[in-house]
C-alpha cells in the first residue's frame, strides 16, 4: 500500500524534501516508515524515535497504517 510522508521545519531542511510517497507492506506500522526514512540521505540528523503524526494526530511506533495514510515527522515544536 502507499502512504504519504511529510517533513517539516528542521527535518525538511536536513532531508532536503518536504514530502514523499512510500510503498509499504500490508499491516505496515509507523515504525516501518521511520526505519525506511532513516535510510534517506540526511536522516542521521533526525532522532532515532521522532515524534510522528498519522492523519494529523500524534501516533505511536506500533500503530498500524492504512493505504493513503498521511504520516508526518514532527520536529520539536516551538509554537506560541
Amino acid at each position, binding site marked *: 500500500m502507499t502512504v504519504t510522508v*511529510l517533513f*517539516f*521545519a*528542521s527535518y525538511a*531542511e536536513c532531508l532536503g524534501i518536504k514530502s514523499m510517497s512510500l510503498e509499504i507492506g500490508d499491516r505496515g506500522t509507523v515504525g516501518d516508515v521511520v526505519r525506511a526514512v532513516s535510510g534517506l540521505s540526511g536522516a542521521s540528523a533526525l532522532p532515532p524515535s521522532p515524534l510522528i*503524526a498519522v492523519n*494529523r*494526530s*500524534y501516533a505511536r511506533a506500533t500503530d498500524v497504517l492504512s493505504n493513503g495514510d498521511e504520516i*508526518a515527522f*514532527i*520536529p*520539536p*515544536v*516551538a*509554537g*506560541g
Partner: protein
Amino acid sequence: MSRPIDIQELVAEVIDHSNGATSVFVGTVRSTNEGKEVLMIEYSAYEAMAAKEIEQIVDEAADKYHVRHIALEHRLGELAIGEASIAIVTAHERRAPAIDAMRYVIEEVKRRAPIWKLEHYADGSRNWVNAGTGQAK
C-alpha cells in the same frame, strides 16, 4: 494568519454580558534569545494538524474550566521584533476559570501544536528554536 493580530477584535469575539473577567495572553517576538540578537522569526506549521490540535486544546480548556468564550489567533510567516505571534482571549463569569483556561491554552499550544520557529540573528546565523535541544520554551 498573515495580517497583524488585532487584540481588540479578539476581545470583542468573547464579549458577553454574563462575563465579569477577560484574560488575555499575547506572545511577541523578543529582540534577544539566549544572548543572541534576533532580527526576525519565521513561523511555519503543519497547518492542517495545527488547526486541529488548537481546536482540540480549546475544547479541552472549555470542558476543564467551563469556559465557553475562548478566541485564539496564531500567526505564521515572517514576524518582526515586537510583533504578536499568538494571542489568546478567554472570558468567564469569574476570574479564576478565565485565567486558568488562558494558561491551559498557551501551555498546551506550546507543547503540542506542530508549529516551528526559525530565528534569524544579527550575526547572520539562523536556528530552529528547540530543535536538537528538545528544550521547551
